[in-house]
C-alpha cells in the first residue's frame, strides 16, 4: 500500500497537491483514504466538494465505530476522506487530536480491513510538536513529500522537516523528495540548490496554472477538472515520481542553522558526510574508552551536571607556579590546592570567558573566573584540547558511563548531581546501582496545607497517585518524629488523601479541546472551599502545562470574584527544572517525590505567610490565656503537653481554629522551622520557638529548658518520673553490650549530629545516650574522599563526645563484609523496610520511626532497640 505524507510551510499548496495526488491515485484504480491532519479542516474540500464533520467532534469509546462514522465517500471515485479537526483556535492541543485519530486507524486495522491501496496524509503547515509527526509513527506513512517554494521561510521549514524525517527514519520513513511550487525559474533553481544541499531530489516542479484556482472555486481537484492543463501534467509526473521513490543509499541530511545561514547567503555548505541509514539510539559511545583516557590525560573528572552543563574537577598541572601568578584559588572555592571546578557547556550556551573547542566550550566555574586572569586559562585550554575530538553529546554520555543505567538516569537529570559538591541528594530512588543510601529524608510535609488554604493540583489521575504511605522503600513515607504519627502501620488511602488537597482529573478531552473550563470550575470550587479570605494554591502539573493556557487570567478572576488569595506554581514544583544559576549550593528541599510536592518554593511560602498573617491579624488584641501553644505536632502532642504542664506551664487544647488558638498562647512551639508559619507569627507579633528535639533524657530537658527560658520562667524543668532514671541505667547496662551502625555517605556525616537528616530525630545522639556503641560505615570511593570523611567522622565524634568506630567502603561487596562484623553490631540504621542488605548480614534494621519523644518515650525507644538486638527471628 502506498502511504504518503505531505508536509511543508503553511499556505504553500500542500492541500492542493495532496488532494490532487489522492485523486490521481484513485483514478488509476486504487482505493484511497485521504486524511486531513490540519485543524483548519480544508484538506478534503476539493475532494468532497464541501466541508465534512471532523473526527474530533465525537469523543468517546469504540474508536473504530467512531472512525467509520467520520469517513466520507468523496464524489471522486475511489477516494474516501476523513478530517481530524481540532480545538477552538488558541485552546487545547491539535497535535494530540491527530495522534488519537491515527491510533484509532492503526488499532482498528482499518486500512487493511477496508482494502485501501493508498493513504495520503496532509499535515498542518509547520510541524510544531510531536503530534503533527504522528503520521510518521510505525504503521503509517512511509514516503514523505515536502512542498517548497523559493521563499527562504519555506526552505527553512523544509530543512526542519528533514530533521524530523531523520528522527523517524527508524520507523522506515524516508523522504521521497521535494515538490517545488515556485513562481519562476529562479525560484526553481533555488529550490534545486536546496535539494542538492540536503542531499535529496526534486520530484516535480509544479507550474502556476489558472486551472488550479478555477478548480478550487468549483471545489474539485484540478487534475480532474482540467486533465490537460500543465498543472495536471506536472501532478501526473509528481505522482509517478512518488510511486517510484525508494530509500536512497545516501539519505538526506538537514543543514545546521549555521549551514542554512551560509546557504541563504549564497555560500553552499562544504561537503558533508551523509546521514547514517537510520538514526538509532547511540547507546554507549564506541569511543567511551578513548574518552576516559582523554579525560584522564586532561586531568579532568566529571562530577555532575548542572543546568545541562558538565561540571568537572580539574587538577592544575603541578608545574603551574601558583606563587608567581597570584595568591592561589579563593578560599572555600576549591578542594585541595591545585584542584579547580570547571564547566563544559554547549558552545552556544556557554558562560563568560569560555574556551571554545568542538561544539562545546570550557570555562571556570562561576566565581572562579579570576583564574583566567592568573594565566590558568591557557593551561585549561591546553588540557581541554585533548578532548576536542569529542562532541558534546559524547561527553554527556560519558558522564553516565559504567553500564549503570541508574547512573545514566541521574546524569540526565538536572538534579541528579551524583558526585556533585552541591549538597546532598535526597531522593531514595536516585543514585542507584552504585551506592544506595540507607537514610531517606522524609517527605510529605509539603502536602499539608495551612488551615483555610486549599491546594488544587491541576493534573491527571497519574498525578493524583503520585504519593503513597508505607511502601516497600517508603518513597513517600510519613514523617517520623514530632510531626508524624509515630509507629504506624496504616494502609494507604485513595489519594489525594489530605482534606484540602484536590486533583482536577485532567483528561483527554481537556487536552484536545482545552482545559479552561475545567480550571475555571476547579478554582471556583476551591475558592468556595477556602471561603472568603482563604488561600487557593494552584499547581500546574505536566500535561496541562503543555497546553500553555492563560491560567493567570483565571486566577485573577477567582481572586476578584471570590475574594480569595491565590498563588500559582508550575512545573518547578516537581523540582525537575534547572536550579537558578546563582544558587548552585542552595539546599534541596526535602521530600520532593510528587508532582505537587514542591520544595518550599518562595512564592508559596510568601503567599502562605501573608495569608496566615492576615488570619492572625484578626485576633490582634486577644489577651493570651495560656503559656504554650503546641503547633504542628503529631501523635506525640499529648506527651509533650504533659511535660509542659508538669513544669508548671499551661498549654492550649488543640482548637478547631488554628489562628484563634495561636493568638491565645504566649509562645508558639513548633516541631521544626516552617518558612511560612514562622514568618506569619513574626508579622503578627507572636512569639514562636523551635526548641531542640525532645528525644533522649538530655534532649527532653533541653527542650523544656528552651521553652521555659523563652517564657522567662525560672522554674525548673520537670524531670523524669520516679524510677525512670533507675530504669534508664538498667537499660543502658543492657545496651552497652550492643553497637548500632550507620551507613552513610560523607555528606551525611555532619548532619548525623542533629536531626534534620532523619525527620528531626537526633538518632545518633540518642543511641549514644542510651548506652549503645556506634559504628560508622562511610562510602568513600577514593583515597581523597576517605581522608576527608575520616576527618569529618573525627569531628562528629568530638562534637558528640563519643568514640565512633569508622570504617570505609567503596563497593556493595565491601559494605556487605563490613556489615557482618563485629558480632556486637546488632543494629543498622535503614529507612528501607526490612532492608535485606541489613537482614542478609544477620543484623536488624532500625529507623527514626521507632524513636519516641519525652522521658517515657526515651525509655520506650531503648526498650524497642533492645528488643531488636535480642530477638532471634532469623
Amino acid at each position, binding site marked *: 500500500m502506498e502511504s504518503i505524507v505531505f508536509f511543508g510551510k503553511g499556505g504553500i499548496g500542500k492541500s492542493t497537491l495532496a488532494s490532487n495526488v489522492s485523486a490521481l491515485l484513485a483514478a488509476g484504480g486504487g482505493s484511497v483514504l485521504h486524511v486531513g491532519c490540519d485543524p483548519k479542516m480544508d484538506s478534503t474540500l476539493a475532494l468532497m466538494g464541501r466541508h465534512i464533520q471532523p473526527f474530533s467532534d465525537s469523543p468517546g469509546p469504540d474508536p473504530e465505530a467512531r472512525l467509520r462514522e467520520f469517513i466520507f465517500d468523496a464524489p471522486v471515485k475511489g477516494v474516501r476522506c476523513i478530517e481530524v479537526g481540532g480545538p477552538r483556535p488558541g485552546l487545547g492541543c491539535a*497535535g494530540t487530536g491527530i495522534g488519537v485519530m491515527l491510533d484509532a486507524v492503526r488499532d482498528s486495522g482499518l486500512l487493511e480491513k477496508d482494502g485501501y491501496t493508498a493513504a495520503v496524509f496532509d499535515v498542518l503547515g509547520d510541524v510544531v510538536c510531536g503530534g503533527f509527526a504522528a503520521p510518521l509513527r510505525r504503521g503509517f506513512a512511509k514516503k514523505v513529500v515536502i512542498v517548497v517554494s523559493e521563499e527562504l521561510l519555506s526552505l527553512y521549514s523544509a530543512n526542519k522537516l528533514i530533521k524530523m524525517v531523520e528522527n523517524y527514519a527508524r520507523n522506515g520513513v524516508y523522504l521521497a523528495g521535494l515538490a517545488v511550487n515556485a513562481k519562476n525559474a529562479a525560484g526553481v533553481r533555488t529550490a534545486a540548490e536546496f535539494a542538492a544541499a540536503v542531499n535529496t531530489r526534486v520530484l516535480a516542479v509544479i507550474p502556476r496554472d489558472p486551472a488550479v484556482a478555477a478548480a478550487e472555486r468549483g471545489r474539485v481537484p484540478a487534475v480532474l477538472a482540467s486533465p490537460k492543463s500543465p498543472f495536471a501534467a506536472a501532478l501526473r509526473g509528481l505522482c509517478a515520481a512518488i510511486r517510484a521513490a525508494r530509500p536512497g543509499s545516501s539519505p538526506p541530511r538537514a543543514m545546521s542553522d549555521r549551514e542554512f545561514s551560509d546557504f541563504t547567503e549564497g555560500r553552499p555548505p562544504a561537503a558533508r558526510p551523509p546521514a547514517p541509514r537510520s538514526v538509532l539510539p*547511540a547507546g554507549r559511545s564506541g569511543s567511551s574508552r578513548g574518552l576516559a583516557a582523554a579525560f584522564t590525560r586532561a586531568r579532568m573528572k566529571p562530577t555532575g551536571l548542572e543546568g545541562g552543563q558538565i561540571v568537572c574537577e580539574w587538577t592544575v598541572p603541578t608545574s603551574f607556579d601558583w606563587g608567581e601568578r597570584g595568591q592561589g584559588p579563593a578560599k572555600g572555592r576549591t578542594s585541595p590546592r591545585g584542584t579547580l571546578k570547571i564547566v563544559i557547556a554547549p558552545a552556544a550556551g556557554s558562560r563568560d570567558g569560555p574556551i571554545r573547542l568542538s561544539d562545546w566550550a570550557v570555562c571556570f566555574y562561576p566565581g572562579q573566573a579570576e583564574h583566567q586572569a592568573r594565566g590558568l586559562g591557557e593551561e585549561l585550554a591546553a588540557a581541554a584540547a585533548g578532548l576536542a575530538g569529542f562532541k558534546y553529546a559524547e561527553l554527556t554520555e560519558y558522564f553516565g558511563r559504567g553500564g549503570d543505567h541508574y547512573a545514566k538516569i541521574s546524569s540526565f537529570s538536572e538534579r*541528579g548531581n551524583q558526585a556533585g559538591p552541591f549538597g546532598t541528594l535526597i531522593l531514595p530512588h536516585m543514585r542507584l546501582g552504585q551506592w544506595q543510601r540507607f537514610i531517606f529524608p522524609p517527605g510529605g510535609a509539603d502536602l499539608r496545607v495551612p488551615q483555610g488554604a486549599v491546594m488544587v493540583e491541576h493534573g491527571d489521575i497519574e498525578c493524583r497517585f503520585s504519593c503513597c504511605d508505607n*511502601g516497600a522503600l*517508603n*518513597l513517600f513515607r510519613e514523617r517520623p518524629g514530632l510531626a508524624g504519627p509515630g509507629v504506624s502501620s496504616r494502609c494507604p488511602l485513595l489519594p489525594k488523601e489530605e482534606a*484540602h488537597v484536590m486533583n482536577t482529573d485532567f483528561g483527554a478531552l481537556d487536552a484536545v479541546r482545552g482545559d479552561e473550563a475545567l480550571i475555571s470550575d476547579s478554582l471556583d470550587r476551591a475558592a468556595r472551599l477556602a471561603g472568603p479570605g482563604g488561600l487557593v494554591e494552584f499547581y500546574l502539573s*505536566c500535561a496541562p502545562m503543555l497546553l500553555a493556557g492563560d491560567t493567570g487570567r483565571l486566577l485573577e478572576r477567582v481572586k476578584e470574584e471570590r475574594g480569595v488569595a491565590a498563588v500559582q506554581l*508550575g512545573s518547578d514544583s516537581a523540582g525537575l527544572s534547572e536550579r537558578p544559576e546563582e544558587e548552585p549550593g542552595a539546599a534541596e528541599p526535602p521530600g520532593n517525590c510528587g508532582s505537587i510536592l514542591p520544595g518550599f518554593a518562595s512564592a508559596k511560602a510568601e503567599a502562605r505567610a501573608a495569608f496566615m498573617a492576615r488570619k492572625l491579624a484578626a485576633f490582634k488584641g486577644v489577651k493570651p490565656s495560656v503559656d504554650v501553644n503546641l503547633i504542628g505536632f503529631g501523635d506525640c502532642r499529648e506527651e509533650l503537653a504533659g511535660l509542659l504542664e508538669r513544669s508548671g506551664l499551661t498549654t492550649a487544647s488543640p482548637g478547631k481554629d488554628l489562628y484563634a488558638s495561636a493568638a491565645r498562647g504566649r509562645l508558639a512551639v513548633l516541631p521544626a522551622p516552617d518558612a511560612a508559619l514562622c514568618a506569619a507569627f513574626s508579622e503578627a507579633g507572636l512569639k514562636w520557638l523551635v526548641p531542640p528535639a525532645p528525644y533522649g533524657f538530655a534532649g527532653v530537658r533541653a527542650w523544656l529548658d528552651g521553652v521555659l527560658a523563652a517564657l522567662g520562667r525560672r522554674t525548673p524543668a520537670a524531670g523524669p518520673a520516679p524510677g525512670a532514671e533507675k530504669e534508664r541505667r538498667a537499660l543502658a547496662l543492657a545496651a552497652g553490650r550492643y553497637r548500632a551502625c550507620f551507613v552513610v555517605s560523607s555528606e551525611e556525616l555532619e548532619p548525623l549530629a542533629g536531626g534534620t537528616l532523619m525527620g528531626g530525630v537526633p538518632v545518633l545522639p540518642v543511641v549514644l545516650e542510651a548506652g549503645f556503641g556506634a559504628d560508622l560505615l562511610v562510602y568513600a570511593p577514593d583515597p581523597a574522599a576517605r581522608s576527608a570523611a575520616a576527618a569529618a567522622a573525627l569531628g562528629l565524634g568530638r562534637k558528640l563526645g563519643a568514640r565512633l568506630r569508622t570504617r570505609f567502603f567503596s563497593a556493595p561487596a565491601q559494605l556487605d563484609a563490613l556489615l557482618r562484623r563485629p558480632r556486637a553490631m546488632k543494629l543498622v540504621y535503614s529507612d528501607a523496610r526490612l532492608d535485606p542488605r541489613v537482614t542478609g548480614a544477620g543484623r536488624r534494621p532500625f529507623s527514626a520511626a521507632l524513636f519516641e519523644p519525652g522521658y517515657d518515650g526515651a525509655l520506650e525507644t531503648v526498650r524497642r532497640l533492645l528488643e531488636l538486638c535480642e530477638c532471634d527471628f532469623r
Partner: protein
Amino acid sequence: MNATSRADLFPKLFSLPYQLGVYLAVNAVSDAGLVVDGGDCVMPKADFIAGNHDLRSTLLSPYGKHRIVCTMTAPLPQDSNHERKLSSLLAEVAADGGFSAVLVTGLPFFKLAGVDYEGVAAGITKGSPVADVPALSLEAGWLEGYDLALEALVRLLPAPRRRGRRPGKRPRVAVAGYLFDRGERDHTANLAELGRLLALSGLELVSVLPSGVPFRELARGLEADLVVSLPYGRRAAARLAARSGAALLETGLPMGLKGTSAWLAALRRAAGLRGGLPAAVAAEESMAAGEMAPLLDVLAHRGAVFAGDPHLFGAFVPFAGELRLRVPAAALDSGVREKLPVRPPQLLLLRPDMAAAAAAVAALGGYDKPQLLVGNSFAATEGLAPGLPFVELGFPSYGHHCLNDEPFLGFSGARTLAGRLANALRSGNGPR
C-alpha cells in the same frame, strides 16, 4: 449547589490510574523491567503495590536495582531531542542484563507531545527485547494498562516453535490475562488449583500469563493448543493465540462451584474433548458443596455490597448467588468494557464519587440493606459501608495478606472464600 465540603466540591473518584495497571503487569513477571518516561513522581506509585499490597514484590530494591525506573524528564525545560535521550537510556537498560524484557511507557504529557514510543522501542536492537506500552493515561484506566502491558510482553516473546500434533496426549492450555497482582499465597494457590482442575479435566495447563515466573517461561504459552482468555488480558490472549495459531476461548473467572464446572466444561469443548466433565470433577464439586452447605445458614438472604474491579464483580455475583447471598449494590473502580455476565444489582456505580457512593449505600433500606462489604482496601478506607463486616478481596488488599493458601478460584477457592464471608458475618469485623 450550596455544598462547601471537600467531598461535595472535589469528589474522590473510585478509580485507579492506567500506569498502576502497567506496574502490576511488570510486577507479575519477575524479571521484567519498565522505563517510565517522566519525572520522579512516577516512582511512589510503585508503593501502592510493593510493600503495601504485595509483600513479595521486587519492583523496588533497597540495593538500588529497581525494576521500574524513570527518565526524570519534565515538560520544561524542553530538550531539543528528548527521544534520543530516551533511546539512550532504553539501550542501557536493555543491555543491563538484569531484565529479560523491557517495557517503556510515558506520562500523559509525552503522549500530548507525540513521543513515538513504539518507534523508539523498535530502535533498540541489542540486549533484552523492548516494547512500548501506549501512554494512555488520559483515556484509559488500570485494567487497560494491565492488558496492554501484557500484550506488549506477548509481542516480545520469541517466535513460537511449530506445534506438532500429539495424538493421545492431553490438549495443552495456556491461560492468559490472569490478574496476578501479587506473589502471595492467594494467587499461587489459585494457580495451583487451576492446574489441578485442568488435569482432572483431561487438560494440561502449560502456562499462565502472568504468574510471577520469569519472562522467558511465558513462552510456553505459545506451545498451547488452546489459549483461554481471561477478562484482564483479552488483548494479550488474542495476541498470544494469533502468534501461535492456537484456538482462543474467551471466558470469565472460574469462581464458585457451578462457575468452575462450567468453565472447565467450556475449556474441554474448546480443546476438542468429547463428553462431559470427568466424574472426578463432579465429585470435587459435590464434596465442596457438602463442605460449604453449613455456611448457607449464615450467608443466605443476607446482602453484600461489592466494591472492586468489574471482572471480579462479574464472577462474584453468580458465586454469591450460589450461597444465596444477595448483592444489592456494587461500586466498580473501572469502566466496564464487556457486557457484565450478570444482571446488574439495584445500585451499580461505575467509578463513583466515594462519598456519594457511601451515601447511596447508606440509603439502601428495608430488605436491601446490606450486612457485608466485599471489596478492595479502598472500599473500607473510604468508608463505603462503615461498620459492616468486611472481606477484603481484589486489588488492592492492603489489610489482608496471605501467608497460607487462600485461593478464591476453583472449588478450593469457593470453599475458602465462602468461609471468609461467613466468618466475617459471624464475627462482625468492621472496616479498619
